[in-house]
């Protein structure tokens, strides 16, 4: 354990130095955005080397922070360079034109709901992403935002149940699982909706 940790930390630190050095020399803004993903790998690597269950529980917030800030930054980049109105091509793959997206999304969503919790939200969200990317919808935007607000409130409520009336832990567990399922799913589909802009 000891030796593994020190060797791993050495190599990950070297990777971090290389990645940050690349950020120093890089002048192009989009290349910088791409390098951010690289830099993040080394931070997740340091956390993973901890090797306990706690490490895993710390990786999940780290991942979420990274993806959230990445989405906001990419949108700022698009606005700042004046690419707002440029059309992004949809995916012209033959399978996606047919009925396949509907079936695949339904399957993914069902499986995700069965899983529930964080992973379930991810799986179900991928289903929604797939559907939206193939079909391109934007009219449900407000609805998505409202659902995300409700899931956030559910989540907070479950947290307080856990902290102050721990006898009802099972109730809180289910509330939290449902809240996080909704939340992750909504966020994923939101990014897919943004993708589809300019398709119609």
């Amino acid at each position, binding site marked *: 354990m000891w*030796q593994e940790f020190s060797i791993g930390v050495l190599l990950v630190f070297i990777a971090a130095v290389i990645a940050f050095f690349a950020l120093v020399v890089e002048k192009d803004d989009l290349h910088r955005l791409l390098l951010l993903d690289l830099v993040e790998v080394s931070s997740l690597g340091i956390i993973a080397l901890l090797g306990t269950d706690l490490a895993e529980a710390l990786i999940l917030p780290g991942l979420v922070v990274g993806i959230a800030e990445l989405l906001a930054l990419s949108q700022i980049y698009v606005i700042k360079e004046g690419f707002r109105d440029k059309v992004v091509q949809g995916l012209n793959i033959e399978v996606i034109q047919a009925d396949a997206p509907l079936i695949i999304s339904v399957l993914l969503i069902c499986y995700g709901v069965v899983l529930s919790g964080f992973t379930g939200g991810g799986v179900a969200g991928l289903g929604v992403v797939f559907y939206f990317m193939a079909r391109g919808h934007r009219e449900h935007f407000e609805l998505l935002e409202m659902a995300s607000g409700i899931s956030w409130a559910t989540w907070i409520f479950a947290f307080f149940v856990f902290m102050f009336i721990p006898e009802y832990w099972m109730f809180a567990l289910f509330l939290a699982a449902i809240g996080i399922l909704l939340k992750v799913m909504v966020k994923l589909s939101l990014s897919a909706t943004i993708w589809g802009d300019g398709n119609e």
Partner: protein
Amino acid sequence: MSPEFVLGLVLILIGTVASAFPRPKTYLVQLINLEIPAWGLLLVMLSYNEALALLTFGGVSALSTFIYVRVIQKREGT
């Protein structure tokens, strides 16, 4: 030390060099090279049996690829 641990660390190192200084310096090449350190990280997580973090990382990196491809498409134009 398990073989996947060593392999993962080596991949992280190689991939970092590869995507920090991509050879034909285009956005797409850099984006594809980013997959190499991601694989390395996945192998490190695998060697510690962090299965759930591994799955979530897979999902999140798929999503970040969506975001990058969208920005690159907007930039390169059609």
